[in-house]
């Protein structure tokens, strides 16, 4: 039965490409590129099969595979997908071939290694989204740093070494503390059931979900901080964002696409998959702080974007702003907001990925990204201008395009959230939407409209067929999600509902244990708001 191992196939299929490419010589550039793209395209179709076969009625993990791995530590190779990870896996497998195709001409040096690292990165990313064992998750999470580090460090821009090291060390500090938290949690599970343990050392996520609600609050707080710091750095939540502009600006285009498109989502995915259900009380406790940081991120990211001279930096800072929305939605902790966050993760992956691609295309022609160097480009590059417009509007959140769906749901959810308990956050966040219109449209106007002031811009070629092929799939998804979001939201609805219920239930159990008044969840907000 294919379904029993198709997920592993999706995770590890890029390795087939890796093996094949290992036997090619550096000079066979064309074959290397084709092999890399073919492997990742096939992987995309495999994940599309996964998407197709996924039963949206069942909120549980599907395509589950479990195999004993390290007996002594009770670690298994344990993978599965639910509606939440499904969308992100498809996003990953979609963006990887696009990123590879976009670097067809951009990468000329050490091409073989480049494609190898991209494929290894894909294995790591899909692995992160499908791991159901914390140990396995950690291995993918950390292992993935290595290829990204090389991609920034070898094929990056001027300041690439600094950016690569900064990226690596920032992420490493966070994840190492998470490692201690993981060990702690597994050790706690090995305690007797009287103390809330399971009697065996385990890193199995589903088992840990069971003991999570009874963890004492003091312990939860520390564990939450251990996990959350790691994710906060990855997202990045203000004030841990300083690695991001460096890494984004210095990374090659494809690196930026993957970084913005997928890697940042790992942070928000982590918050959703681990922080909320494992440590709900601590999450509630820290919610005001995180919500404030998220709002600061939204506004700060937007304001900083506005004053950037470099288009790529502008897009990079806009990520800080957009991810702020996602984090706010997650911590609003109701179904609408989390659904919104989830779809917004996908949206951001598509639109910011595409913006980086477009910036990269302009850069390949002019070797500069200074906004003042351009002006009037839409006269010489009408196709690019069209795509740029669509993507910018999608990023701003124009109704009918994908960005709107996510932002609307997040704002709606956080407006009503009984955890946030005040519409202030939503109102402030809404400013972010306005600001995003300002910085993106202003930038668009300065780059695209007006008269051509620089002679170099006169002769620019419009997009080639390959470049159009890079952008068309993204644009298609932009419209698809914008017009008919249900085909995606529907897949994740059940899982999100279960997640919210799980958190609510755990909070309820907790308050009973602590003899505190139960929060008013008699009329579950998820029910009456449907």
């Amino acid at each position, binding site marked *: 039965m294919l379904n029993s191992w198709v997920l592993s196939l999706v995770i590890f299929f890029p390795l087939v490409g890796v093996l094949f490419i290992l036997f090619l010589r550096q000079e066979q550039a064309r074959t290397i590129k084709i092999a890399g793209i073919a492997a990742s395209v096939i992987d995309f179709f495999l994940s599309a099969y996964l998407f197709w076969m996924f039963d949206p009625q069942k909120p549980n993990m599907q395509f589950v595979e479990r195999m004993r*791995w*390290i*007996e*002594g*530590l009770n670690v298994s190779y344990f993978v599965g997908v639910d509606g939440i990870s499904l969308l992100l896996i498809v996003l990953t497998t979609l963006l990887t071939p696009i990123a590879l195709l976009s670097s067809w001409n951009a990468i000329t040096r*050490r091409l073989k290694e480049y494609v190898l690292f991209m494929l290894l990165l894909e294995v790591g990313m899909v692995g992160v989204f499908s791991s159901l064992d914390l*140990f396995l998750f*950690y*291995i993918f999470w*950390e*292992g993935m*740093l*290595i290829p990204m*580090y*090389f991609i920034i*460090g*070898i094929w990056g821009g001027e300041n*690439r*070494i600094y950016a*690569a*090291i900064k990226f*690596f*060390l920032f992420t*490493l*500090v966070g994840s*190492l*503390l998470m*490692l*201690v938290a993981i*060990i*702690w949690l*597994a*050790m706690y599970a*090995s305690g007797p059931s009287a103390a809330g343990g399971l009697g065996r050392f385990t890193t199995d996520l589903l088992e840990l979900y069971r003991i999570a609600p009874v963890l004492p609050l003091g312990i939860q707080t520390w564990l939450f901080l251990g996990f959350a710091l790691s994710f906060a750095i990855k997202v990045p939540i203000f004030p841990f964002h300083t690695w991001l502009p460096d890494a984004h600006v210095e990374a090659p285009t494809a690196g930026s696409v993957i970084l913005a498109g997928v890697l940042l989502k790992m942070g928000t995915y982590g918050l959703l998959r681990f922080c909320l259900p494992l440590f709900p009380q601590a999450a509630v406790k820290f919610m005001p702080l995180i919500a404030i940081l998220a709002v600061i991120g939204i506004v700060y990211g937007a304001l900083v974007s506005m004053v950037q001279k470099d288009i790529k930096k502008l897009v990079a800072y806009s990520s800080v702003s957009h991810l702020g929305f996602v984090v706010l939605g997650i911590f609003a902790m109701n179904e609408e907001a989390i659904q919104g966050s989830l779809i917004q993760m996908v949206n951001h992956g598509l639109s910011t990925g595409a913006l980086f691609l477009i910036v990269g295309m302009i850069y390949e022609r002019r070797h500069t990204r200074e906004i003042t160097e351009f002006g009037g480009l839409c006269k010489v590059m009408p196709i690019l201008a069209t795509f740029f417009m669509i993507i910018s509007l999608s990023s701003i959140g124009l109704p009918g395009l994908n960005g709107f769906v996510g932002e609307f749901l997040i704002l709606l959810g956080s407006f009503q959230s009984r955890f946030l308990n005040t519409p202030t956050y939503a109102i402030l966040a809404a400013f972010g939407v306005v600001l995003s219109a300002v910085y993106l449209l202003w930038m668009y106007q300065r780059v695209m409209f007006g008269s051509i002031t620089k002679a170099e811009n006169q002769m620019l070629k419009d997009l080639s067929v390959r470049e159009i092929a890079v952008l068309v799939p993204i644009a298609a998804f932009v419209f698809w999600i914008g017009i008919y979001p249900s085909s995606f939201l529907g897949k994740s609805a059940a899982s999100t509902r279960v997640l919210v219920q799980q958190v609510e239930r755990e909070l309820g159990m907790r308050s009973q244990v602590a003899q505190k008044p139960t929060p008013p969840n008699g009329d579950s907000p998820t029910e009456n708001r449907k």
Partner: protein
Amino acid sequence: MDFSSPDLFSTSPILALTALALVVLFLKALLKRGEDVIFGVTLIGIVICISLAVATYGRAGTAFQGMIQVGGFTNFFYLVFMVATGLTVLISRSYLQREEINFGEYYCMLLFAASGMMLIAAAQDLIIIFLGIELMSISLYVLAGFMRKRQKSNESALKYFLLGAFATGFLLYGIALLYGVSGSTRFVVIAENFPALTADPVFWIGVGLVMVGFSFKVAAVPFHMWVPDVYEGAPTTVSAFMSTGGKAAAFSGFVLVFFHAFQVGNSKITDVLAVLSAATMIIGNVIAISQQNLKRMLAYSSIAHAGYMLAGLAAGNGLGQTGIMYYLAAYTFMNVGSFGVLSVLEEQEEKNLTFDDYAGLGYKRPLIAAIMSIFMFSLSGIPPFAGFFGKYYVFAAAVKANLTWLAVVGVLTSAISAYYYLRLVVYMYFRESESAVTTEISRPSLAALVISAIGVIGLGILPSLVLDLTQGLF
């Protein structure tokens, strides 16, 4: 005293290795220009010893009236020592030829040191520990000074000898005091009387002195001062051997004495070891950052790794013991490998040993650079390489023993260590080179590097290979 044949078979790995050392010594005396023969005989002998160690693995117990422990734990360490020795022998030949010190005595001393190590891992009596340490150390003093004509090598040997002799003095004095209060040097006897002995301050002085002796041998702060100078001055292949085999031997003794003779988990011992461990991790890693010479960088890194392993010892539980054993196996592969890479690229007069010399190596020697990167990532503890699982184990042991703070110090210093390990990767891949590397890489050296890399990846993906060996040993 009668020697029964089961005793002889159980201890056959150590007997065989000692015999091998003597054979090599005679070969050297009988043959002129017999280095190639010696090289071959040594390798074959080591393979035989490995087979014997595997064959006697299950015979856990004691031999020679309980003086010597056999099977299980001991044989695990035999295997580690044999791997370290074998890999060192493989990387040595071309290095010795290039440095013009290709004398058969080198292999002979290597084997004597290895038999000392094996004696330590087999000890059930403090006297055996002492014998083993002396045999190992004296051979290593000679090896450190093997480049007679190079000033630094002489300095290294002298420094190592003086400080080492001092440390052994501490150890011996500690043993004497322990004997004085407990009336025996046997682990079993000391362990039986442990609760009563703890009331005696002299006993604690003895424990402290023994701890100092071992801390010196494993290179724990503040007894680490000798390491950078000795590792830098000694022939690179000898540094590889000292930092892996020597460290593994010292740790095997440390574990034996503290787990078998003293009660681990005793709060006094735990606290001291935990502080030693934290200090070692912090100081080793922080000082390593500023090193320009790769041998010194690896020396400080080796200090830092002693700190991680001490965390497992401080934890004092079964997990910690497994952790140390796994860690040492992993460390042997990655560190012999790293020093091995240094040794194949080093040129006469200590050339090609700084970060700058490695600039652009990824383009000039893709295979060597890739292998070195694997070692560096593994040393910094990035999964899926073996170094990560070692750290995971010792930190898990620390958390289990309620030493979470120690695990936090451990992970934070690991993050620091990533900086200097990755710095080498930065030089190899992200910088362009100015000079061309001309060194030829011989087949045995390459084989050793490839075996080490396979070891690091294999133990990383299938840690059970080693973990299963350590199950049920304690």
